[in-house]
């Protein structure tokens, strides 16, 4: 099965804009996917590290306090990663919107 790609007509500025936006969006989605996968790996690694610490201190007085603290530490760690990733997604998307608006404004000016 061959994938058909359409090359926008250079005389169709909206088509070019649409094509550029699609390309930028695909790049942003790709970057976001890679970044999310990296975040998931970092959180998994951190969780394993904290679990190893718990295993090492099993039997210490107040061990139950450590279990509760580690659970919360992992939750906080993951939440902060999610927050930072969401900010990165916003930054990527807004840069695309910025490009789209700038290009759109040029088209509008040219049309006047």
């Amino acid at each position: 099965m061959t994938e058909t790609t359409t090359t926008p007509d250079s005389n169709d500025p909206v088509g070019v804009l649409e094509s550029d936006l699609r390309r930028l969006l695909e790049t942003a989605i790709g970057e976001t996917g890679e970044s999310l996968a990296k975040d998931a790996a970092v959180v998994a690694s951190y969780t394993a590290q904290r679990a190893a610490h718990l295993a090492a201190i099993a039997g210490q007085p107040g061990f139950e306090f450590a279990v509760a603290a580690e659970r919360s530490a992992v939750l906080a760690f993951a939440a902060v990663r999610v927050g930072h990733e969401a900010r990165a997604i916003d930054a990527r998307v807004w840069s695309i919107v910025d490009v789209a608006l700038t290009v759109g404004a040029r088209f509008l000016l040219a049309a006047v």
Partner: protein
Amino acid sequence: MNLAPRRTAPFLAILVLAACASGRARQDVVLPAARVIWPEVRADVLRGIDASGVAGSDRHDAHQVVILIGTAVASGNAGIATSALREWPVAKGYAELGFTHRVSAGEIGEGVAQSLRERLSNFHDLLQFLASP
């Protein structure tokens, strides 16, 4: 020239909707996590205040810091979180004192204290995130 806004509008609409990710993450992930963890951290700070033996206006000031952080977490307001972050070293100091005291008393082991410090440190990161707009 045919600008055909009908063709580009859906793209922009998708982009703008997607650009709400950080607001949603803050509201739905970071803030709830801070609200779950704060009572545990608060208990650590209060134990430290008690262990320090601080009294009078210093004790009052220490409790005011606890109230400020609690307000920041309850409201999710970035301005209040910034103020709370400024006072964080005070809360952290008392919590650390409490851990040391508990280890000395044999209530918890040093490894357990490390876990409590880890939670304290990660809660600070949550507060820092809430403080940034």
